[in-house]
């Protein structure tokens, strides 16, 4: 009974992951040979990046399965077991706060906001305010599960308040705040928060435990939107300064990789550190795992670290640049193709998003395979395709504003949440946070900024950031529309009929 058959397990995992990165790679290569030829060096770097992304994603997901997932579940169970609402709230807040405060994406964002506000808002203020926002929302999300409050009403309230704040905030800050939400729900936080909600709802049990397994990520990503808008209003900032960093042309093939490698080695440590410390504290005081289980979880965290680093290096050194060149090239030579290419890019880019994999797997797990991974993926693909495509239109047509899309989109999302089975509400809002992960945030953002930079009427600041906002919004509509179809079909069919 040795050997080879078990290789199937590894091979099938590798196949799954290659299939999720392959479409985007292929699309870029096709674009290279048809519309926007890029330099050979750039293309080789891109392919190298794709390989790193596949390897990194594989190791990361594997590690998430062993490490972050179980930690989240265990913490969720522990929190639910306290049976004390006050404690649930406090622990939820602490977890949410510490996990977002260390997120490297958020630190980059804090820097950008600092510049945009002309130094009025310091980096530390942003970090702390956004993390408090996340902490509060995670606490609310956990308490919601305990008190069995319906998700659709909660989201309606949350987004209504955001809407009111949005009336007061500047358009630039509207974009930045939604971008902040994308930044905090990064590759590491999303799987953790997903598992946390799952753990709490599993332990609590009851009739709604299935639908309660989702929605926490969606709520957590609303926190930063609140926080940044509040900052804008309180500080009374009414003009945005600064420019997006100048784009440095990379030279050499391996050079860029070697240059950014140390940065991501460090960033990944920062992302993982709070989770690692929280795990050790919880383990000492609560879980009291045996040596073997603890070993597996720690091994999982190590894999996550390696995987995430490789993934981020691949995306940043290989993908970002190509994204920008494609955006620029299209805007210069075939501007009318921007929405179409954007549509295609959106369709494939979301497949390579790490947290998407984790979310879809959890959906299958929770529904015993009733809602299949593939179906969710297709809905997501279509959603993100529209997001990128519409963003391109917005960049091309100056009179189209970001809120022309966001307002109706979120309103439709809120309306649908009263029409679809509750589990789809949770999955939909979670998908919003999940889809705006590291892949979209670098590749699609670079594409949009490239295009905006080449179109004279566009503003790189607003138009660039707005893409993330769109990517966070469209899944809410797309997944709930899917839920509507599910509901229709389920009503039509007689389940156990006989021929």
């Amino acid at each position, binding site marked *: 009974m040795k050997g080879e058959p078990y290789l199937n397990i590894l091979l099938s995992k590798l196949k799954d992951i290659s299939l999720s990165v392959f479409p985007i790679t292929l699309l870029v290569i096709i674009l290279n040979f048809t519309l926007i030829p890029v330099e050979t060096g750039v293309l080789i770097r891109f392919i190298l990046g794709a390989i790193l992304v596949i390897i990194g994603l594989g190791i990361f997901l*594997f590690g998430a399965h062993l490490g972050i997932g179980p930690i989240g579940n265990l913490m969720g169970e522990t929190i639910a077991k306290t049976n004390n609402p006050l404690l649930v709230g406090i622990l939820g807040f602490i977890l949410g706060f510490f996990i977002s405060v260390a997120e490297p994406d958020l630190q980059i964002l804090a820097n950008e906001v600092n510049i945009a506000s002309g130094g009025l808002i310091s980096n530390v203020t942003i970090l702390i305010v956004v993390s408090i926002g996340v902490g509060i929302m995670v606490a609310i999300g956990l308490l919601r599960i305990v008190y069995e409050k319906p998700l659709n009403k909660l989201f309606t309230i949350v987004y209504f308040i955001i809407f009111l704040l949005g009336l007061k905030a500047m358009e630039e800050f509207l974009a930045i705040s939604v971008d902040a939400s994308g930044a905090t729900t990064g590759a590491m936080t999303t799987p953790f928060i997903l598992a946390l909600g799952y753990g709490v709802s599993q332990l609590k049990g009851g009739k709604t435990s299935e639908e309660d397994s989702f929605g926490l990520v969606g709520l957590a990503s609303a926190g930063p939107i609140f926080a940044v808008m509040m900052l804008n209003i309180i500080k009374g900032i009414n003009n945005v300064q600064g420019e997006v960093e100048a784009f440095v042309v990379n030279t050499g093939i391996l050079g860029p990789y070697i240059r950014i490698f140390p940065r991501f080695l460090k960033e990944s440590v920062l992302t993982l550190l709070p989770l690692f410390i929280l795990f050790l504290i919880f383990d000492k005081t609560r879980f009291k795992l045996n040596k073997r289980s603890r070993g597996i979880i720690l091994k999982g965290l190590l894999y996550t670290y390696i995987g995430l680093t490789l993934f981020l290096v691949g995306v940043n050194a290989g993908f970002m640049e190509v994204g920008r060149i494609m955006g620029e090239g299209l805007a210069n030579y075939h501007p009318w193709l921007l929405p179409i290419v954007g549509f295609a890019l959106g369709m494939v880019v979301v497949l390579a998003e790490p947290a998407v994999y984790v979310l879809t797997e959890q959906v299958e797990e929770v529904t015993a395979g009733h809602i299949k991974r593939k179906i969710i993926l297709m809905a997501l693909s279509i959603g993100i395709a529209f997001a990128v495509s519409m963003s391109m239109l917005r960049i091309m047509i100056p009179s189209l504003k970001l809120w022309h899309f966001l307002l109706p989109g979120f309103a439709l999302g809120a309306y649908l949440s009263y029409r679809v089975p509750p589990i789809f509400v949770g999955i939909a809002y979670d998908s919003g946070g999940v889809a705006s992960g590291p892949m979209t945030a670098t590749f699609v953002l670079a594409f949009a900024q490239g295009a905006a930079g080449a179109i004279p009427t566009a503003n790189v600041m607003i138009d660039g950031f707005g893409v993330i906002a769109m990517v966070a919004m469209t899944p809410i509509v797309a997944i709930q529309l899917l839920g509507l179809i599910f509901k229709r079909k389920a009503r039509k069919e007689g389940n156990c*009929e006989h021929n």
Partner: protein
Amino acid sequence: MNIIKDELILFFTIIDFGKGSKVLKLSKEMGAVASSIFLGRGTVKNELLNMLGILDVRKEIFLTIVGQNLEEELYSNLEKKFHLDKPHHGIAFSIPLNYCIRVFEDEKYISNPEKKGVKEVEHEAIFVIAEKGQSEDILDAAVGAGSTGGTVIHGRGCGTRQRETIFNIEIEPEKDIVLILSKAERTEAIVDSIKDRLKIDEPGAGIIFVMDVTRALGLYQDKSK
């Protein structure tokens, strides 16, 4: 009630995650009475993989009820399409059923009307597959008729006719599978009680089947009863 004399068997397949729906389709095409799938985990015995941290893999446990005349065909089809004859491709086994009730059609299949048993069975296992969310009603009805309780498994599938698809992927409705162990003399009452509780006029109301249990441990009844 429409009584059909037909030898039925309960057919189990444990297979890698993702293949369950294919087996379900196969059994549907062959004319299974009812089918269901639930999720599980299987062991991995390989030092290299264990060292990497792969200790288990996702599995799907597929169960279907078919007439005995189809048993051989199902085995050979599984062998052909899923290569179960080779190691690590999954396992299949079958168990005879005492009887099976399809609630919607109000049909009862009786396997062995006169018990051939040399030994009188003391316990029987009752399985109920119904729409998701009905497990509480089912347990309630069972306890009301003298059962000590039951276990709920969350699964999907069943059905023989529906072909609803989204993006060309078939939707398999969610199910509650309830397992109840009961004293043989109480089985009839429990089954009747469950059958009455499940809405008979609706398609998809569910399916109940019973099989012999040769030994049981842990079933304690209130002494006052």
